[in-house]
């Protein structure tokens, strides 16, 4: 049965289907190689987790509405129109078994951008309102309260004050005329305050003129997880507005992958962005500070236990910040830093990104995926692992606890701050 919500989904697909989407859908040869790249398919063996299968609603909407071949298939009864049940079925697949990590695109012999296309599939789901309840709830919280974790303005202030006291790190709030606006995630604020404090310390040591904003205080974008265009825009708008009001030159995205992806690559294409404001990820900015000599690091501060680096899908594979964290780690732990394989743009996703970690029903999925990560960790006998994404870090911390692993999980900023000279 096709209802109003399915119609909204189809309308979204039609709206999003330009030549960019269509040419890639046409290019697929049904070879199935993308399945071998997908950590969810690899870990769980469900053929429906094959990335190309996740595009099925988009492909069907496109072919049935825009192409003669698709209409022919309908007429011959080879294919059915999209129905509510289809949306619900695929909603579980695209939200609970996909981190939009885009590894499949690097494996696809045709180079199809499966990640962004799955994002479009999610957009239809969001328009139809067929989003997993947990994810929808968090999004709603971000819309009304301002943070997916439900951090209210007061809580935020209290927390910032507490961190300032506890770690003795100055955190300027709403400082007009600052050069950099640093936007943190609620995850850092609530679960990894050490990381937040570390970033503050590093920036202070470098003499950076920076601030945080009490209005644009959340960098995480649950609208982007959901792929709801309006909400994505709204959440970014809050930050951009704050940046304009404070008159900053750059927005520094703290350790969050999806947020970086949204601000750096998606925002200019979907909304008005303030002119002359750079978007930088904290890891590339710390690297920049170190490279320009504004901070000095103690060489070999973490030599000893084997430490490895986890590449995040949105920051490394889709963000290109590949060599900066490595250069830093080679300074911090020249002897004991070891690479996992595969790494860099071919790395294996943590399994918690793309909103998966916020969905309770997907827990089994992400633990199964993490077992592959454990194998990787054990291959290099890592005692510690470092990363530049709070979402990954949350998944690591949670899963390491779940599996009782003797592995320490660090944020890169935290390591850098401890090695500051």
């Amino acid at each position: 049965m096709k209802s109003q919500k399915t119609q909204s989904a189809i309308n979204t697909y039609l709206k999003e289907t330009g030549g960019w989407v269509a040419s890639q859908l046409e290019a697929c040869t049904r070879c199935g190689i993308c399945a071998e790249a997908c950590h969810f398919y690899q870990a769980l063996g469900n053929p429906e987790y094959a990335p190309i299968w996740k595009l099925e609603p988009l492909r069907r909407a496109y072919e049935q509405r825009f192409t003669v071949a698709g209409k022919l298939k309908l007429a011959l009864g080879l294919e059915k129109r999209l129905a509510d049940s289809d949306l619900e079925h695929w909603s579980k697949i695209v939200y609970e078994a996909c981190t939009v990590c885009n590894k499949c695109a690097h494996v696809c012999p045709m180079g199809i951008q499966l990640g962004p296309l799955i994002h479009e599939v999610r957009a239809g789901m969001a328009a139809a309102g067929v989003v997993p309840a947990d994810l929808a709830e968090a999004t709603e919280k971000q819309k009304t309260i301002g943070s997916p974790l439900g951090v209210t303005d007061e809580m935020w202030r209290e927390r910032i004050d507490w961190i300032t006291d506890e770690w003795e790190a100055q955190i300027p709030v709403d400082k007009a005329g600052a050069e950099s606006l640093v936007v943190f995630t609620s995850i850092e604020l609530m679960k990894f305050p050490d990381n937040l404090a570390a970033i503050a310390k590093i920036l202070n040591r470098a003499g950076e003129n920076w601030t945080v904003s009490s209005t644009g205080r959340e960098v995480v974008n649950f609208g982007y997880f959901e792929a709801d265009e309006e909400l994505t825009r709204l959440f970014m708008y809050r930050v951009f507005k704050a940046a304009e009001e404070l008159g900053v030159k750059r927005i520094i995205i703290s350790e969050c992958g999806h947020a970086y992806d949204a601000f750096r690559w998606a925002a200019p294409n979907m909304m008005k962005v303030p002119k002359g404001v750079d978007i930088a990820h904290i890891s590339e900015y710390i690297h920049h500070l170190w490279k320009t000599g504004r901070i000095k690091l103690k060489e070999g501060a973490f030599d000893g236990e084997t430490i490895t680096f986890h590449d995040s899908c949105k920051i490394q594979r889709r963000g290109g910040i590949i060599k900066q964290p490595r250069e830093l780690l080679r300074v911090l732990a020249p002897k004991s830093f070891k690479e996992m394989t595969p790494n860099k743009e071919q790395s294996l996703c943590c399994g918690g990104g793309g909103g998966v970690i916020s969905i309770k029903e997907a827990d089994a999925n992400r633990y199964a995926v993490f077992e592959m990560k454990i194998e990787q960790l054990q291959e290099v006998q890592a005692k510690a692992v470092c990363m530049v994404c709070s979402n990954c870090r949350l998944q690591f911390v949670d899963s390491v606890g779940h599996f009782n692993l003797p592995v320490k999980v660090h944020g890169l900023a935290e390591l850098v701050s401890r090695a500051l000279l």
Partner: protein
Amino acid sequence: MNWTNILNFSRGPLLHVAMIIFVAGLSYRLVRVLLLGWARDRAKNKGSKLWGVIVNYLKGLFVLPFIPWVRRTFRHNELTFIAGGLFHLSLFLVLVFGTAHILVWKSLWGFGWKGLPTPILAFFSAVGIISMIVLLINRLTHPVLKMLTKFPVWINWLVVFLPMITGFIMARHLWFRYEVIFSLHLISVSLLLIWIPFGRISHFLFYFFSKTIHGAQAGKRAVTP
């Protein structure tokens, strides 16, 4: 109706109609996709798009297909990589360096080139046919491929396989009278040409879209594609 007439028919009007459908159909499809509109990407580049595209093509056409085992995913699905690669290689060699095919290109474009020795071509066409059979078995057994393969995909396989097997039998002078198998080869080729604008075999065209997009996306983000 005798086979000489059928041969003349399939070399003449049938192939002609097939080529008409092929050319018109593909340009139709291309234009339909192109005119769906292309949004400009306003995000600032981190790296060079062009460089990404070049590296992507070099890797995709000349490096990775010949050393598929360097990919991690190879281990999960060796058959698709090896048989798929060998199929495309042999298809390329036979179509481009088969003497009979060179004559076709020559009649269409006015110039020809030297072919490969027959035993080499025979070897590769056999490799191509075996790869096709392996790919079929793979498609019949692999859970993901089983699910992805719908009716049109079987047609894809069939219309590619028929010209290959009839061409091989013809070139080796096996079993059939030459004009019979020659006619069958041409009929199957016509079928293939007619089917291409409707099916996914047209990926040889859209490959250049998706491959360029991937290269540009990676290059723009300063990532190795």
